């Protein structure tokens, strides 16, 4: 194992944030070789894309020495004797990354996945000295664990995040850089560790700049005047001084919005349950409020006696942060859809969203307040039924009852132009259709019996023949009459 501490006047200062970076060189090829160990001794390449336009993504050392390069077509690689061509397996790489993630979790709770180069994790090792010893011991232990998992890895420790990434990428084994010595440590590394663009790589090559040290010696102002702001970034990276704010991986916030409770004995009444739900809603609200959010969806899962589950979803029209309103909505929903057995366990899941903020105007028309409207609609749904409360939406259809009920959500108050059309006669609909008794004299209606009342026909027009079968013109099977009673 190669371990080096760069000679420098400074020593590691206690209390400074140090980053340990673990990098698996040629990650895709190592994953492929781990899946098929027989490939380790032979030259192979990984290709990607639709055949026959496949492109070589990476190759192992033996294949590279045979002349294969990344970017060649699959057909070109196939012409080189002794090279095995394999398709890249993203699912294998994803499972390998999970292994890396698990190992990294053993060394630090704060880590960041570095997307370029692939197979790289950066760990904040501040305060880990008591568990793993000094930085060198930690890096060696980290590398050892990677080797045991089947990966050949490089580890680097530095105070600068990007300097550690570059070192792990460019130096084999373990490298530890004391604070302030990043430029010294990066001096001999090739330029590709800085990940410059193809255009800049070509430009630096024409200038004769091949290492980070050579780039760092150039004047920053002159470099920026020639290649723009990208020059400043590359110059700072080469000196190990590029500032980086760490974004540690964190468990999903949404997954933390769950509350569970086991009951000591089965509960059949909803009232005692509401005390527990109130406490759980309060806890969830505290969590979302800590992030200046509100609750958009509440899902109650009741585990019932007999192994069944009862699930209810409360979805206010706008995200709410008010406990009383949410609890009332939960209560009304559970009362409308009560569970059919005793409750053994309950779970409350929440989904967060940005809280609503509305600027009301002094002279705007009256509109229901959103929080109160939600509770009102829930109460009305409980009273009348789910499908009997809401706004109506017409369908593009000529059949009777061509409409559907949608949730009532009035748009923001806005005046629309009044219509200049005359008043339309309103018709009323009998739902469900009612039976009407008709007395015919000479095949003409003369009296109508409806709801126990007898009406005499005062005026009549018709009959209008209506076809029940539009495909058969001869079959006019219905006679309709217009009558005034």
């Amino acid at each position, binding site marked *: 194992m190669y371990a080096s501490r760069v000679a420098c006047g400074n020593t590691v200062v206690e209390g400074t944030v140090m980053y340990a970076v673990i990098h698996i060189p040629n990650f895709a090829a190592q994953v492929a070789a781990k899946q098929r160990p027989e490939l380790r001794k032979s030259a192979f390449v990984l290709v990607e894309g639709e055949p026959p336009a496949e492109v070589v993504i990476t190759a192992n050392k033996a294949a590279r020495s045979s002349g294969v390069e990344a970017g060649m077509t699959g057909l070109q690689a196939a012409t080189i004797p002794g090279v095995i061509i394999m398709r890249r397996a993203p699912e294998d790489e994803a499972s390998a990354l999970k292994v890396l993630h698990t190992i990294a979790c053993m060394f630090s709770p704060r880590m960041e996945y570095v997307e370029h180069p692939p197979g790289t994790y950066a760990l904040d090792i501040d305060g880990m000295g008591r568990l793993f010893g000094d930085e060198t011991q930690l890096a060696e232990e980290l590398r050892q664990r990677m080797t045991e998992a089947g990966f050949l890895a490089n580890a680097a420790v530095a105070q600068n995040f990007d300097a550690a990434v570059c070192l792990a990428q460019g130096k084999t084994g373990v490298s530890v850089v004391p604070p302030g010595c990043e430029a010294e440590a990066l001096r001999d590394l090739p330029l590709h560790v800085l990940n410059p663009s193809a255009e800049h790589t070509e430009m630096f090559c024409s200038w004769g700049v091949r290492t980070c040290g050579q780039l760092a010696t150039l004047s920053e102002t002159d470099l920026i005047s020639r290649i723009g702001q990208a020059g400043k970034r590359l110059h700072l990276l080469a000196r190990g001084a590029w500032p980086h704010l760490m974004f540690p991986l964190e468990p999903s916030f949404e997954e933390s919005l769950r509350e569970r409770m086991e009951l000591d004995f089965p509960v059949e009444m909803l009232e005692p349950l509401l005390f527990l739900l109130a406490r759980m809603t309060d806890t969830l609200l505290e969590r979302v409020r800590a992030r200046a959010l509100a609750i958009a969806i509440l899902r109650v899962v009741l585990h019932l006696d007999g192994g069944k589950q009862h699930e209810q979803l409360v979805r206010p029209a706008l995200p709410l942060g008010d406990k009383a309103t949410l609890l009332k909505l939960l209560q009304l929903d559970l009362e409308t859809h009560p569970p059919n057995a005793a409750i053994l366990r309950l779970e409350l899941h929440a989904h967060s969203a940005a809280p609503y903020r509305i600027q009301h105007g002094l002279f*705007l*028309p*009256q*509109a*229901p*307040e959103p929080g*109160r*409207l939600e*509770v*009102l609609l829930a*109460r*009305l749904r409980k*009273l*009348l*039924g789910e499908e*009997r*409360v*809401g*706004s*109506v*939406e*017409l369908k593009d259809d000529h059949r009777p009852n061509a*409409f559907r*009920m949608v949730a*009532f*959500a*009035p*748009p923001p*108050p*806005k*005046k*629309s*132009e*009044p*219509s200049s*059309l*005359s*008043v*339309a*006669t*309103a*018709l*009323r*609909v*009998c*739902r*469900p259709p009612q039976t009407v008794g008709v007395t015919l004299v000479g095949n003409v209606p003369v009296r109508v019996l409806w709801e126990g009342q007898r009406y005499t026909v005062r*005026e*009549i*027009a018709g009959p*209008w023949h209506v076809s029940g079968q539009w495909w058969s013109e001869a079959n006019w099977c219905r006679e309709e009459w*217009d009558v*005034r009673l």
Partner: protein
Amino acid sequence: MPAALTLKIKQPPELFSTGVDDMDMMLGGGIPRGSISEIAGALSTGKTTFALSTIAAITQSGAACAWVDVNDALSPESAAAANIVLKRLLWLRMSAERRQRGTDKPWSRLEQALRATDLLLQAGGFAAIVLDMSDVLPQHAMRIPLSTWYRYRLAAEQARTALLLLTQTPCANSCAALALRCEPADVRLFSRDGETALFEGQRYALVRERNRNEGSPFQQKKPCTRAEWPAETLWSRAR
């Protein structure tokens, strides 16, 4: 002078236009906000047409309204034809299908409607609420206790909501600030040859029986108490 004995200056109420100029003129501007308006009349005398026209004018002004439908008889097509902004209309349909089971009495639907109206008035925020009892028989409507109408009057005043009652016979009595009676005015005869469309040339009449917000009784020019207005169907519009 003690404050209790001081005369309160009565502010003229805010009015909602009915969408018909003749009616607005007869009512002095429209139906009053924050009180009960009762529109009574037999079947097919234009009560629903009048209410839809009023609701259309209110929803077009940007406010939200509610329609408490005791008999689930509202035709959405008619509402759309009256130019109501449907997204601003909350439609509450009482359970009409329960009637088939024989267990549901008209009274229970009426009870549901009264409770729903109570909830709407308490929640506030609605500019107008229509309690459509047009198909409720007078003997059932008269059984509603007067205390309900008193409660509604106070709630409507606090919520600044215009409560429109559509009934066959007046039942809110003195609680209604405005009482109107609907009558059929002019009916064009059907033609046997189909030349005259059904319901073409329909005219309705509205008689003002009481208006508590009327101006001074000594004013010179008194508004008329009866107004006639035409209404037409979609198919006659198309002609």
